[in-house]
């Protein structure tokens, strides 16, 4: 159940192939890919906390594995400066049934947004530059998974 932080781009097809190679017990495979949106964004620069980021992502993944019967999972997150249209993050989950795969992927993304130490600086096409604020909607999305 790998977790990878990298500057390089990733190849979704190759990652999926590696995840499911040589096995026939996966009935459902969900991928989420996050991409840099354009518009006023000239580029997005992602900074992370080496060491803690891997630890946080592994903890998020371990939690998903206790909640859903996953056959495989994968988190890849890029860092560095990315142009509009570039891939930022890939989450993949494989399970026997589709609901587990969908829910686990959604869970991983919600936790990753709020609980993994990444920060984004947006450089805008008008020359302005600022760090993106965390969004309360992301915190609310994560909190819907909290157990009572």
């Amino acid at each position, binding site marked *: 159940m790998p977790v990878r932080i990298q500057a390089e781009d990733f190849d979704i097809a190759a990652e999926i192939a590696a995840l499911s190679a040589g096995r026939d017990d996966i009935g459902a495979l969900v991928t989420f890919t*996050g991409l840099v949106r354009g518009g006023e964004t000239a580029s997005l620069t992602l*900074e992370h906390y080496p060491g803690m980021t891997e630890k946080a992502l592994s903890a998020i993944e371990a939690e998903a594995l206790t909640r859903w019967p996953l056959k495989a999972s994968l988190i890849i997150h890029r860092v560095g400066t990315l142009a509009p249209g570039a891939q930022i993050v890939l989450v993949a989950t494989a399970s026997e049934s589709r609901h587990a795969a969908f829910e686990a992927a959604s869970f991983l993304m919600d936790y*990753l*947004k709020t609980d993994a130490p*990444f920060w984004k600086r947006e450089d805008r096409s008008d020359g302005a530059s600022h760090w*993106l604020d965390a*969004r309360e909607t992301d915190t609310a999305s994560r909190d819907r998974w909290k157990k009572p």
Partner: protein
Amino acid sequence: MRILYFAWVRERTGTAEETVTPPATVTTATALADWLSARSDGHAAAFADRKRLRLAINQDQADFSDPVAANDEIAFFPPMTGG
């Protein structure tokens, strides 16, 4: 004590990392932030609004009320925005 800064906190302090030896009275993250604030105007600006800051002690999310010790790695940063 190893102090790390990320994102705009790093930009304000002007450094990504520094090793410091605070006095024995600095026993919590709050006290550490107060003490670090005095290092420069940039540090003061970085720590001005604690509500906008998060921290980790030895790579685990922590609170300002948590204790800090001499060999800890303590990081200050804005709320996380991954994904």
